[in-house]
Each structure stands twice: as C-alpha cells, then as structure tokens.
C-alpha cells in the first residue's frame, strides 16, 4: 500500500512530501520529495547586493535565523579579509546561542507534538517565545532578524535588556525542566523513541550528518569546538554525545545542548567587553547616521554602499559554522562586484533528510513521525 504523506499533512513541517510504501503498518520504502518550499535562494542572491542577501538568510533556518545571519556575514567578511569588532563577536555568539536554544526547543516541542504530547509543545513554545521576545528587543524582529552587518551587528544591547534576559532565562530553564519531566523518563515516550531510527556512527558520517543528529550517534564533532570561530574558544561548555543514534538520543542531546547554550549565554553576558559594534571603515560598513545626514563624504559612501553594494574582491570562500542542526556552510563566490556571483548553502538539513528513507525503513508508520521530527528538517534550509 502506498500512502502519500504531505505536502499538506499535520506532521510535515515545512511542506515536504513523503511517498511511503507500507506493508501493513510497516514501512517498506519511503521517498521524501522536497521542493514545495523552494524559493530560489541562490538565484535570488545573485540579483541582490551582498547586504540584501541577508534577509534571505533569515529564511533559511527560520527557527534560528541569527545563526544563519552570522554564518553568512562571516563568509562575506572572510572574502573581504576583515574582522568584526570584539563586542560584536560576543553579541553574535550571545544571540546565536539564544537562537540555538529556540531551535532546539522548537524541535523538542515538535517531537512532543507529533507524539501527541501537545502540552510539551506548548511549554516549549512558551519558553521559545520568551527568548524570541528578547531577540525582538535586540534585533527589532522575532524571526526575520537580518541583524548582522559586514563588520559587526546592526544594534547593540538595548538598555535593560541584559536584566530582562537574566530574568527570563530561569523561566525558560524551568519550562525546559518541565518538558524534561513530562517526556524524558516517561515510558510511553521512551518506548516510542528508543531504538527507533537508529543510525551507526560510521553510517552517519557517510551520510554527511552533522550537528545533534551526528553527535547522537557518538561522533564528537561540533564546529564550535573543532574549529572555534568568533569567541567560542573563550567559552566553557561541553559537547554532549549520544550513544546509539536513535530518536531518543537525538531528543535528549538537544535537551542537554539547551543547557550548554544557556551556560554560554551567561558567560557571554559576563565577558562581554564594551566597545563599538561595527567597524569604522566606510568601504564596508555604512557610515554613522550623523555623517550621512551632515557630510558629503558620509552621504557619498552611503550612496555607493547602498546602490552598488560592498565591493568584494574576487574570490571564493567556504565558511562553516555550527548551525542549530549542524554544520551550516556558505560557499560564496565573488567576481569583484557589488553583488554575489554565486552563493550556495550547505544546509545541515539536506544530508540528514536524505538519510530519512534509511532511518525509517522497517519501522511502523507511527514511528515515521517522531523520526522525522527528531532530525528537525527545516524546509527553508533544505529547499533554498
């Protein structure tokens, strides 16, 4: 029996379609079909200036947009050969880790939701909303942040924001703890997730897994530790590892990563130095508003940057950061103009999604859903 799940199906986040061949309730074969959310990211980027690509990156992994912003802008900075200010590095890490927490909360909530534990989903969403409120105070928008800039970030911490964050983090962790209570040791949940969607470490590496799904199999690879960028080398955090690479491990690993990200956020708040948040070089960063309003030099630099974009020297870079779901790579090619020649994104979701048929083969159709959720496919980054 062939059953068609999606593209419009309650459990198919991000509109993906699974053509599932069943034997009774056992899955013989599953073919994921993507493309329903395709937006032509690469092609659209070629017609935008380097800065105008930024809103597109918001929409890659739309649950942790700041991590995409950071990854992309780091690529442009690498092409330009410049480095952002120290404070902006801390800000990027801070906001990025908050985004990671929101992403993991969403994933955990979705696992709960699809397993019928709707309450878990709502608790996770409640915690996520608290953090997104902070993000919106910081960046001006909850999800479509477009927050980073070449050479820094768009806005500094608003007054009183740090205290607000410190106020809301305990509540976030409390709700995370309640999710923990409701799911982690619950036998129904464990029966549904343990030994389901198992992938060995070797196979995971072969499939190109990264991020929590890879670490759930026991492979110790986290870009933040393996190739530290920004100020991650100054942060004290641990990389949790799973053992068996099943849905349960993927779930519990995300739960643990939330706690680790929480630690990083607190450390960032402690260590963050004062200083500028944007480099002072008018070839790359827009001049301060005062100069734009009042001096011809400022307004000319401003006009050139807006109309023609940042002049990026010809070259080709691949920049990889640890996105919420794994290694988020940006391959940027510049031909020396104000617009990218080509941009490709290595979304962590695609290799993981492509392993889905392997993961769910032989399981019941009811297991498809938790497996699908635990790999946390985000339509935006899989189908650029």
């Amino acid at each position, binding site marked *: 029996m062939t059953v068609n799940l999606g593209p419009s199906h309650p459990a198919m986040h991000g509109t993906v379609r699974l053509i599932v061949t069943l034997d009774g309730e056992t899955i013989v074969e599953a073919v994921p079909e993507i493309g329903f959310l395709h937006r032509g990211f690469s092609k659209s980027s070629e017609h935008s200036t380097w800065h105008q690509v930024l809103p597109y990156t918001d929409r890659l992994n739309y649950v942790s947009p700041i991590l995409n912003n950071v990854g992309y802008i780091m690529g442009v900075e690498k092409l330009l050969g410049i480095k952002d200010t120290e404070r902006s590095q801390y800000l990027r890490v801070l906001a990025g880790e908050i985004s990671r927490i929101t992403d993991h909360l969403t994933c955990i909530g979705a696992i709960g939701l699809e397993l019928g534990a709707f309450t878990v989903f709502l608790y996770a969403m409640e915690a996520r909303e608290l953090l997104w409120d902070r993000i919106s105070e910081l960046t001006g928008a909850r999800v479509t942040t477009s927050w980073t800039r070449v050479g820094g970030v768009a806005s500094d911490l608003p007054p009183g924001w740090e205290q607000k964050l410190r106020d809301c983090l305990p509540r976030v962790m409390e709700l995370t703890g309640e999710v923990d209570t409701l799911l982690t040791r619950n036998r129904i949940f464990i029966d549904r997730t343990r030994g389901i969607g198992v992938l060995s470490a070797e196979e995971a590496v072969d499939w190109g897994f990264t991020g929590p799904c890879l670490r759930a199999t026991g492979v110790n690879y986290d870009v933040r530790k393996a190739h530290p960028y920004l100020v991650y080398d100054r942060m004290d955090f641990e990389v949790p590892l799973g053992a068996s690479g099943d849905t349960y491990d993927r779930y519990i690993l995300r739960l643990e990563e939330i706690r680790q990200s929480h630690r990083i956020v607190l450390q960032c708040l402690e260590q963050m130095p004062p200083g500028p948040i944007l480099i002072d070089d*008018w070839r790359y960063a827009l001049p301060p508003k005062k100069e734009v309003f009042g*001096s*011809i030099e*400022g*307004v000319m*630099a*401003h006009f*050139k940057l807006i*109309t023609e974009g940042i002049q990026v020297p010809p070259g080709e870079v691949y920049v990889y950061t640890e996105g919420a779901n794994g290694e988020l790579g940006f391959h940027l090619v510049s031909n020396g103009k104000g617009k990218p020649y080509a941009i490709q994104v290595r979304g962590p979701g695609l290799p993981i999604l492509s392993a889905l048929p392997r993961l769910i083969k032989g399981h019941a159709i009811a297991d498809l859903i938790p497996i699908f959720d635990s790999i946390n496919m985000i339509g935006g980054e899989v189908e650029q």
Partner: protein
Amino acid sequence: MTKVFVDGREVEADPRDNLIEAARRIGVAIPYFCYHPRLSIAGQCRMCLVETSDAPGRLVPGCQVRVKEGMKVVTSSPAVRDNQRGCMEFHLINHPVDCAICDQSGECKLQDYYMEFDHQPSRIRTSKLNKPKREIFGPLVVYDAERCIMCTRCVRFMDEIAQEPQLAVVDRGSHSLISTFPGQPLDSKYSGNTVDICPVGALLNRDFRFQSRVWFVEKSPAVCTGCANGCNVYLESRGNLIYRLLPRRNEEVNQVWMCDEGRLTHHETNEKRVEQGDLARAIELLRPIAGKPGIGISLSAQCTNEEAAAAFDFGARIGAEKYFFTARLDGDGDDFLIRQDKNPNRRGVELAARAAGVTLHDSVEGIKALVAFRTDGLLLEKPLEVFIAIAQNQGIEGQVTLPCQSVYEQDGSVINYYGRLQRTWPGVPAERGESAPAWSWAERILAGLGIAGAPRSAAAAFDLLGLPGLKLEAIPEEGVVLEQLLPAQWPKRAPRPAGAAR
C-alpha cells in the same frame, strides 16, 4: 610607438598619448575630472597627478604630460595617493550634501573616486559656501553652482565641439561658477552633451531630471531615429518606458556626441501610442478585395529595412497596385550631426523598393484600399473604402489601426544618409500593449487571409533586401557602409567613414 612603463608594466603607447591614455592601454585608470580625450587640456582638477621618472620628487598632471620613450610612471605611490585624497577633500569642501536630490548620483565621478581614493570622514568644520542652485541655462540644461567643481569641460565643449561659445566661467576663487551670457541662454543644438560630460551633478538634463535613478534604468544600444544621420545611442529604459538617450561612441557617425533633438526622440515611443488593434477586423476588411485591383501600400521613411521589405512583400502577395512613399518633412540641418532629412531610413526604403522592383509614388491617389506601414507624413485627400493603418502613434486613424512597435523596441536595421547599414536592437524590456513590428502585422494579416510564405522574423525580412553576404545578425555593432550608397557631397564637419573623401 613609444615605450613607457606604467607601474612597472611596459606599455606601447602612441607618441601623441598623454599619460592617462597610455595607462588606459593596460587598464590602469588614472583618475581625472577635467580631462576629456576630445577636448583641449585644462589641467583644472589636479586629480590626475602622477609620479614620473622625468620629474622625480614632484607630481605631474597625467593629462598634460605626453609620453616619452622609456618614461616610468607611478600611479599609486603614497605621494600620488595622498594627492588624490587631498584633491577629493578639496573638491568636497563646498560640495553640498546633495546626493539625495542629485540626478548624477550613481554615475557621479565624485562618488566613484571618493569610494576608491578617499573613504574617510570629513575634516571640514566650516559651513559650506552657498551658490545659486537650479539656474536654468537653456531648454535642456539646468545648472547647480554648488555642485560644480569647475572642471570647465562644458565651457570647452561649447567652444571647441559645438563651436557656439555660450558658456563661460565667471567670478573668482571659490566663488567662481559657470554662467551663460546675459540674455543668451544655452540654446545650442548640442547643449545636451555638456550634461553628459559633466563629471558631477552640476549640469543636468531637464528632460530626464527626477524621472528615474540612473541605477534603475537599463542601457541598451540603438540607433537614433531623429534624423538621417543615424547617431549611435544608448537607450536607458525601465519597464515599457525609455527614460533618456545617451550617445554611443561611433567614430564614423557621431563620435561621442548627439544633438538635443535626437535626445528627445524617445518621447514618441513613450507617449500617445496606439496600443490595441483589431487584427480580425483588418483581415475581414481585406478578404473581399485581396488580389483585386485597387489596393495600395504606403510606407514611411520611418520604417526599418525589415518593415519596408515586408511591406513590399506584403504588396506582392496581396496584389497591390500602387506603392506610396511618405516621410516626415525636412527640418533644419547643419554641417555636423544634424541632417535636414528627419527620417532615419529613407535610403533603406529606397533600397528595399529597388530590391522589390517597384516604383514609389509620392501622393496617395488612384486606389480604393490602402494598407499603410507607418503613417508618418501620410495625407489622405479623400476617404478610402478600406484603410488599414499600422501606426506607432495616435494621429491618423484607419478603419483598423494596428499598433506598430517603435524602432527602439524592435529588432532591425536602418540605413543612414550616407549608406551606413546599422543594426538596432529591442531596447525596452516590457511590451507596450499589443504592439508588434510592422512586418509581423503583415505576416499575420497574410496568414489570416490564408497566404503563407511571408517573413516571420526580422532576419527573414532582412533577407528580402537582397544584400548579398549580409545577415541581420551579422551586422557589426558599428554598422556596415554600403559603398554604392555613398554620397558625393558631404556636410563639412560631419564624421564620415575612414576612407571617404573630405
């Protein structure tokens, strides 16, 4: 050839070259404001100062200094860079914060050079000098003294190229500005060129002013339809509108200039267009009389070669009795770029007629039905039984009027007054209504009447012209001179093919 070294690289330069041109040969761009290759050297802006081996320890203006055998030129030493920065700073002292309202921004040399050579905040703390803004110099040109950097390119152009000295520098020092003479506006027929050569936003085109930003419009090559000279131009268009025409370099037709009249020819394409046509009704009207005597074809000298060829083809297939030639009336001409014949393709229509072996009549008479391929200059003394017009602009209404594409919108070719066959390209991205080239309408009418074989593309129509060895796609960008059409008499200063007699 003279051998010089620019930034350590060897350059084979013409002995008449100055340093800027020599450096340009290997792609090294020395910045300049006042220099123009076709104008005399002024040395006003000091932007082009470079170091040479001839004058160690001091900087020399690249525009004034000619190359010398073995000369070593350094264009990016710290001293040169420092001078460039200083020059920029100097030019910007009194420059108003006007990018937002200045039409030049986007193609402004100040902006380009600032980003390339300066990109530093301003150190000036005094207020800027106020000068007249928005001086209307003439019908096409408006002047803003604050933005002017006194490169005097415009003054030199009017003196040397237009040869109508209408501009001058008045006042002194930082108060100096460009001015017209009292009671004498800048009304030269070439005044638009001063806008083109102005490196900043001081002289602006009143026709284009505030219509669009320069980075929104798309450039595409075309041939001006204003007169028989066939100046090479760039169209700048967006959507289905053409915003302005700029001269395109062609040494043998218009050098780098064009006249004011030609600059305004795009208005015909933008305004008062016929947009819809009832093809079915046209076919209905023609069906009973097709093949019977009494059908006339008229075509205007505004037609492209393809349209003209298709018109004769159409006439032959439908059994036309008579062919009529219409044209716009002659206007003023001069001995430089402006011709009296205000039609872009009189020679082409004549050529097509010769190829088709028909005779062209001037006044429309002796027929019952008329199909007009473009209606410019068409005069009907009495109403006809059937009158189908393929027209670009509103004005003459036939029983059926089919919308014709402008020359700027279609693929095709025209022949200028001295027989230069020049290609023109579709330059407007968006379609205007149902408009189509006249040859396309001819083909569709014939198809509706059940007559096959008419040319279905511009290239096919071009082939009817019977020009051996030439294909439409193969016409080079600068055009081909058809030797048999070369005139005996040349206007005095008009650019002409290299071998032509002066």
